[in-house]
């Protein structure tokens, strides 16, 4: 198994410890229930989406390789090494991070965040404290602001553009995966 270049051996050791801790039945794979056992994750409004991101469509389990691969998205971007155009986009580059986040919004994988999907996210984040109308007006406004090609949905490019002022590298990085 060739480990992706973007995680150091030290990381792998640490993540493997965590993987084993989560894998209570020692099967070598993680199932959604194992993730669900993490208490704090259950309190997270988008917890199930995050769990879902680990599992490729159709798969029921996640092995260590995929586990690391997903978490490698959250490594701080390496500014020292210039981007080599021949190599594929590193998994912790800004674009890849944004793409990961985008996929969490876009559950039906059609490449766009539709109004319904946005509403779902808003509903889960705002946890029933607002009325449907308020949610809808927020969703409307959001789409109106971001939607440049007027297709009433947010594409990846529009998503990226609306976040251009945010320091994604800082925001979507976990310190210990340095």
């Amino acid at each position, binding site marked *: 198994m060739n480990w992706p270049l973007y995680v150091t051996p030290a990381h792998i050791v640490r993540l493997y410890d965590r993987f084993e801790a989560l894998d209570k039945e020692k099967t070598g794979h993680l199932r959604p229930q194992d993730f669900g056992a*993490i208490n704090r994750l259950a309190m997270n409004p988008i917890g199930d989406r995050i769990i879902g991101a680990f599992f490729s469509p159709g798969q029921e389990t996640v092995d260590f390789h995929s586990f690391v691969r997903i978490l490698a998205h959250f490594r*701080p971007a390496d500014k020292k090494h210039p981007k080599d155009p021949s190599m594929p986009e590193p998994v912790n580059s800004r674009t890849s991070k944004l793409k990961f986040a985008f996929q969490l919004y876009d559950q039906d994988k059609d490449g766009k965040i539709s109004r319904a999907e946005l509403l779902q996210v808003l509903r889960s984040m705002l946890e029933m404290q607002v009325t449907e109308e308020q949610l809808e007006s927020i969703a409307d406004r959001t789409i109106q602001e971001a939607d440049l090609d007027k297709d009433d949905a947010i594409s990846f490019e529009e998503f990226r553009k609306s976040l251009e002022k945010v320091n994604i590298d800082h925001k979507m990085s*976990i310190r210990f995966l340095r």
Partner: protein
Amino acid sequence: MSVRVALHSPTGSRSFLERGLLLLVMLIFLEGTVLTLGAASSPDISAQDNTGGGHDRRDDHRGIAGSHEHTNYTYTKKAFPVLSLDYHHIQVPFEISLWVLLASLMKLGFHLIPRLSSIVPESCLLIVVGLLVGGLIKLAGEEVPPVLDSNLFFLCLLPPIILDAGYFLPIRPFMENIGTILMFAVVGTLWNAFFVGGLLYAVCQIEGTYLSQVELLPCLLFGSIISAVDPVAVLAVFEEIHINELLHILVFGESLLNDAVTVVLYHLFEEYSGAGEVTPTDVILGVICFLIVSLGGIAVGAIYGILAAFTSRFTSHTRVIEPLFVFVYSYMAYLSAEMFHLSGIMALIACGAVMRPYVEANISHKSHTTVKYFLKMWSSVSETLIFIFLGVATVAGPHAWNWTFVSVTVILCLVSRVIGVVGLTFIINKFRIVKLTTKDQFIVAYGGLRGAIAFSLGYLLDKDLFPMRTMFLTAIITEIFFTVFVQGMTIKPLVDLLAVKKKQEAKRSINEEIHTQFLDHLLTGIEDICGHYGHHHWKDKLNRFNKKYIKKCLIAGERYKEPQLIAFYHKMEFKQAIELVESGGGVKLPSAMPSQVSMQNIQPKKLPPAVAERALPQFTKGREEEIRKILRSNLQKTRQRLRSYNRHTLVADPFEDGWNDFLLKKQRMIELEKKMTEMSNYLTVPAAPPDSPTMCRARLASDPNAFYNIKASSDGVPTIQVDLASPQSPDSVNMLNEFSKRGATDQGLGQREGATRDEDQGLMMKLSSAGKEEKEEGGNKNPGLMRCLSDPGPSNEDEEDEPFLP
């Protein structure tokens, strides 16, 4: 504003320049003369008058009283003084007011001369003015008043500036960079103090300088005084260069947090300068003292902040004194901290930062504006006064110029700052995700300005213990001048030259807000999966704790349930509505927009079809809602006018297109007015207590076209309650309320209104929504609404856009 004025009259710009200069010179002379006069009628002279008897009014009274009690006092009658000059009576307040007036007029004056204010930072100009005034007073032969007296400075001039900084501190970037800021503030200041103090002592020991009587401890004390970066100076200069947020918060945060270090070092060295040596126990005690000073200061501030937040929960019936609580509690926090020799600055910052989210959720919109205006006003005046006084104090002296000492000080300060910043950044970058570049380091080093705090601390020194105090003061002043003039003036061109990233002007969009929150949740989740207790984990925990316990205690009514996103959204909508109103309804809207004049001609200028067609596609739903809001708010303004228009001037109006059209419009106007009065009931400030759910439902139910009426009854209590009570200010949510209603009605009517003929007509129809008959809710006018809407506050800074709890 003055620049625009100057631009309007290009030929007149020179006259502005001349006028401005004349004004300045006149003011300076005025100030000088009056102060001289005041100094002339100084206590000893009036004392003579008193003993002379019969001149002072008070003396007369005493004389009269005396004549009853002491028979040996002979009362000599003289002519009744019709007009007498009694300067002594009002001297102190008068002089204070005069100084404040001078400061404010100076501030005005500088902005009348646009070119000057763009080259030279305001702080420099103000120091020069101070120098001039001081010079004038000295020329007149009078003694320059000791204006930068430490008590006055620390108790009156400094707190407003710090409170302003603390209250509007951008919490999110501050907390994200807190490690870096603390490193610079604590370690950096310590390094500076010891480096400068130690090397100065070494230089003093050199034979040729005649300074060998300066011992080590006074040198170290001097080092600790001069090494602290000054928040006032930093604010004054950085405000004008609009640098990016990260650098601003780094330098500014450092200048605020190094107060604790300075206080401890100052007291430590001052105490032991008499003893002549510092033992290791003292050092350990010093460290403990530092922890107590800083943490104690923060604790004191936080306690007062919570008290203020708690008090503001109950102020819904006495809105007028709400701002007072903010100011008084903060000032008391400062004074309490100073009482225990804790760090007053940190107390103020903590107080402001802690109370802000809760207080803002509780107080009315007007009080919020008041607080903002007052803080900005006081801090601005304070800052101006401080710089002017610096100038005056420079002239006052006494000075003991020593070339070696002064020049070595200046050079050493620069060198130590650079070394300190570079060294610390090297260490810090190992721990930061976003590293600091060389450019950043340069700006941080160059932005380390010294200011009046150093001077005041020096002034506080005991003359007997420190015979070289005057030399110290001279050196401090020179250093201050150097940093403020040289560094302050050149930092702007350097920033441009180095192409340092500037502050992003655009406001936060709702997209950013939503996605940022989403990412916060995502990162928290990922951290939980990794089992890593990181930054996000603790932030999330704090937020949960806050929501669960603290908000319930400190926020009035039902508002504590309101999610941050909704608050942000309301704020944004409200702000946008205000902006559209202010700007006259937006450029894209043809005719019939909010100016009072055009309201009268609200009738039909028939647009050429091309324009109409071009204009129509621009009206997305959002825009329409905004337009509706403008109309609503402006109809409020012109409602009075419309009434008279309807009754008296309708025949005379030459723009009338047709009687029928007009009648239709009149009917719509009336319906709109009814709508407006109903809305204005919601919007009167002070806010009425939120209606009970049943009342709300009844009100909504009376509106046959409200689609979400059905929703309302099925959703149960919480939704309605939150609707009306959740506003951050009562005004904004009711806009939303109306807006939602409109939205609902719009959906119903949208089809009917298919091809709208003329813009204004079409819009009007949508608003009136086909004849709702609601009973008039009393026709009370609400000027409050317009005032509220028309006053967006001192400035559109993005502190406003910061969510309460990042």
